[in-house]
């Protein structure tokens, strides 16, 4: 039961009538902080009319309590001591708003993340909580009513990355009638999913479920698809982003190319010479090529690095001849820059697979028959380099195949995290390899992780099929034979930890189940979009549970594997969520911005202009007629740098006024 304590000290500084609410958060706070004592302490502070502690302040009854007190005790300032303001400040602002108080007459005290969760000593934690509450009570008395700013929102959306996440988000938004710009770095959309053969656990073919969506993107009137393009600059703020996109020359007029590929056939190269990126170098392509048969857009690309015309200017240009009247080929094409304006941005930049060269003991790059899992996806894909035949580099079928899990995952020497998808895709590959070749298949795993709908059942199925499971991390793959049966084969050495001895298992093919890593340019991308990365390099969500696709930059959302390893179902779900979040912003028609802008008291301004270069947004200008600086409130983002730099103290920042901060400083330091 909540309790009211009537203050003995009735003094009322500046007419503030403060209510203090200390949250237990179950035992999250109350386990370390003596919440009762904090509330009793607060009750004695000048200006405090009501002080309570309650089990869960953010619950409905907790909020109702505040609203009731506001009415009954005519409170005009509220302090809530609970969790981080980044979590529940909006909640409590709404609470007091509904009780008729201006939402900015609230101050939150973070006694969970900053106190109870990080300290062990109950006495010291309680003392710290007291200090913080005291500061908040003193500060809140100076708070002024403020209004959020409303700015209209541009309804266009930018989606960066054309893998399954970007495709799904773009289609969802376009279906809802929004204009979408989809920017993809490669010449085609499709991402990693387009390279897969089958998808777990249902074993439906990746192309069958993906290519219809790709085609839909290509033909949707609401989607502007820019492949072979990259975002190079982002400016503006939520609702009003200005984005610059670089479009690399593909030396083909996209509007003229029909995708007939006659130029490819006609190329002076009779055979491909360059490792084919899409097939991971397992086949060769020509200088003019279509990345893969279902590529979207169905437009060829010319690679200037290998095309003779670019090297010597002396090519017979049989391709141009073949193109004929269509005149789609243009060797003089130049890079172009496009400027677009969008209101929201969805990042779906995906992942990179771990490069197993970093783990030399597995022999990748040294033994030809050691493959990555992605390479095997291409090998067993009917549209792949071997037309779906799983054969070794010498054309022979493997009789035994070893699949090594956790390559570049769960390893302090490379990446510490679990890549989440490898167990399941290894099972899928085990099944496909067994089905196609009848080979003995060995899975080397540490822990089998199959949480997901239908996943454990799939594992059961593999066990039924007679695939071997050896629980142990592989120490090495070697061609060094210690037994006649090992001659000429690759030997996998691991401890069979369930049998408790070391085993050497000779195989013909080794599949390295490589983990997922952040894209190599993730840091540059996050800087451009002004978002954060986790220490591993994944894009950081606003809250791991409650705001999984939002970022700390309003209007920028993330989806798919750029946020962390995840499989296709999770990726699609996140892409849908990101699209919905973007739509929620757009359909509100305007965005509310925090009122933390700076303002100038003209009387005090000496016109020294030292604030003007401090503003990164050019929001401050000099009014010549008055010889005073003025701030454009629409451009100001509220960092407060000019405030701190003003020599005459004539600039102030809403909600962070000097006096408010001085009061907070003195509040935390004042002894009781």
């Amino acid at each position: 039961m909540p309790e009211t304590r009537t203050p003995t000290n009735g003094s009322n500084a500046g007419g503030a009538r403060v209510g203090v609410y200390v949250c237990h958060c179950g035992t999250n706070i109350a386990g370390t902080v003596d919440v009762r004592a904090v509330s009793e302490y607060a009750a004695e502070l000048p200006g405090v009319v009501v002080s309570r502690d309650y089990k869960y302040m953010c619950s409905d009854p907790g909020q109702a309590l505040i609203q009731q007190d506001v009415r009954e005790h005519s409170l005009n300032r509220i302090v809530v001591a609970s969790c981080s303001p980044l979590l529940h400040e909006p909640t409590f602002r709404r609470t007091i708003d509904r009780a008729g108080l201006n939402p900015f007459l609230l101050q939150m005290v973070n006694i969970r993340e900053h106190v109870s969760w990080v300290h062990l000593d109950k006495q010291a934690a309680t003392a710290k909580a007291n200090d913080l509450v005291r500061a908040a009570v003193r500060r809140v008395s100076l708070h002024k009513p403020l209004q959020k700013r409303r700015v209209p929102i541009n309804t266009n959306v930018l989606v960066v990355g054309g893998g399954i996440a970007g495709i799904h988000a773009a289609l969802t938004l376009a279906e809802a009638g929004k204009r979408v710009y989809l920017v993809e770095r490669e010449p085609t959309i499709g991402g990693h999913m387009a390279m897969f053969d089958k998808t777990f656990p249902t074993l439906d073919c990746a192309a069958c479920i993906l290519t219809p969506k790709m085609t839909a993107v290509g033909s949707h009137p609401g989607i502007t698809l820019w492949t072979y393009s990259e975002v190079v600059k982002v400016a503006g703020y939520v609702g009003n982003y200005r984005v610059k996109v670089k479009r690399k020359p593909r030396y083909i007029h996209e509007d003229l190319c029909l995708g007939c590929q006659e130029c490819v056939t006609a190329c002076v190269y009779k055979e491909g010479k360059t490792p084919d990126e899409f097939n991971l170098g397992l086949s060769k392509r020509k200088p003019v090529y279509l990345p893969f048969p279902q590529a979207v857009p169905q437009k060829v690309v010319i690679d200037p690095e290998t095309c003779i015309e670019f090297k010597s200017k002396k090519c017979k240009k049989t391709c141009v001849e073949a193109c004929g009247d269509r005149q789609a080929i243009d060797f003089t094409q130049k890079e172009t820059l496009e400027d677009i304006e969008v209101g929201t941005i969805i990042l779906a930049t995906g992942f990179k697979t771990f490069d197993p060269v970093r783990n030399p003991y597995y022999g990748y790059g040294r033994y030809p028959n050691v493959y990555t899992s992605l390479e095997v996806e291409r090998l067993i894909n009917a549209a792949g380099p071997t037309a779906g035949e799983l054969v070794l580099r010498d054309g022979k079928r493997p009789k035994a195949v070893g699949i090594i899990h956790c390559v570049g995952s769960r390893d302090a020497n490379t990446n510490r995290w679990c890549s989440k998808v490898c167990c399941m895709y290894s099972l899928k590959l085990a099944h496909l390899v067994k089905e196609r070749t009848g080979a003995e298949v060995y899975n080397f795993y540490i822990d089998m992780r199959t949480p997901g709908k239908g996943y454990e059942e799939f594992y059961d199925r593999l066990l039924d099929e007679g695939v071997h499971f050896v629980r142990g991390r592989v120490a090495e793959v070697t061609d060094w034979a210690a037994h006649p049966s090992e001659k000429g084969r690759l030997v996998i050495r691991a401890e069979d930890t369930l049998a408790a001895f070391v085993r050497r298992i000779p195989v013909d093919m080794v599949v390295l189940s490589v983990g997922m890593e952040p894209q190599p340019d993730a840091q540059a991308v996050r800087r451009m979009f002004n978002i954060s990365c986790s220490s591993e390099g994944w894009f950081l969500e606003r809250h791991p549970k409650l705001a999984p696709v939002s970022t700390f930059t309003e209007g920028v959302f993330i989806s798919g594997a750029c946020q962390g390893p995840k499989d296709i179902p999770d990726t699609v779900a996140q892409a849908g969520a990101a699209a919905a979040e973007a739509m929620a912003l757009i359909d509100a028609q305007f965005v509310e911005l925090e009122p933390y802008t700076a303002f100038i008291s003209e009387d005090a301004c000496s016109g020294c202009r030292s604030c003007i270069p401090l503003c990164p947004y050019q929001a401050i200008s000099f009014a010549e007629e008055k010889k005073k600086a003025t701030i454009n409130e629409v451009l100001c983002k509220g960092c407060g740098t000019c405030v701190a730099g003003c020599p005459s103290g004539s600039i102030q920042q809403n909600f962070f006024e000097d006096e408010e901060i001085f009061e907070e400083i003195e509040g935390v330091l004042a002894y009781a």
Partner: protein
Amino acid sequence: MELKRTVKFEADRDPEFARWISHTVGGERIRHCLQCGLCSASCPLSLYMDYTPRRLMHLSREGFKEEVLSSSSIWLCTACYACMVECPKKINITHLMYALKERAIEERFYPKRFPIPVMAQQFCRMVRGSGRITESWLIVRVFLRTAIWRLLSMSGLGWKLFLAGRMPAKKEKIQRQDEIVALLDSVAETRKELAL
């Protein structure tokens, strides 16, 4: 067929031993062990061990002191550091092997005439006495105390090495032997004082 009943009671565990291993130098991360077996598979000697290094790590952190200290594995470790370098959790396995050896010698957990602890003790004695090791003398001393017949079987090699000038009969000794003694005594004193 001889049947053996195996069940471990909680009372068989020595929680103090488990605490010790995770607090000893190098044991900081032993609780992170995944039991992946990479240590065992990269160990050149694991094929000869009664408990593979992986099992030893788990038995230690669970406090099965008897099993751990009477295991042959701790004596087989040659300190090649292959396990430690590859361990995905960066557990200092090699160093823990040293710690277990030290503990096993302290608590006399090894078979009689087992050469490794004998060699270790003779080694230390020689350091205290001369400050340096003379290999020829060390080998003789160890075999005298463990397996005299091996001394005879190896005499051929010994003679060859002697002829090649690689088995000097002269004992190596440092000049300021008193420093070594003072050093060793100081360590013993500090250890006692700080209860290390």
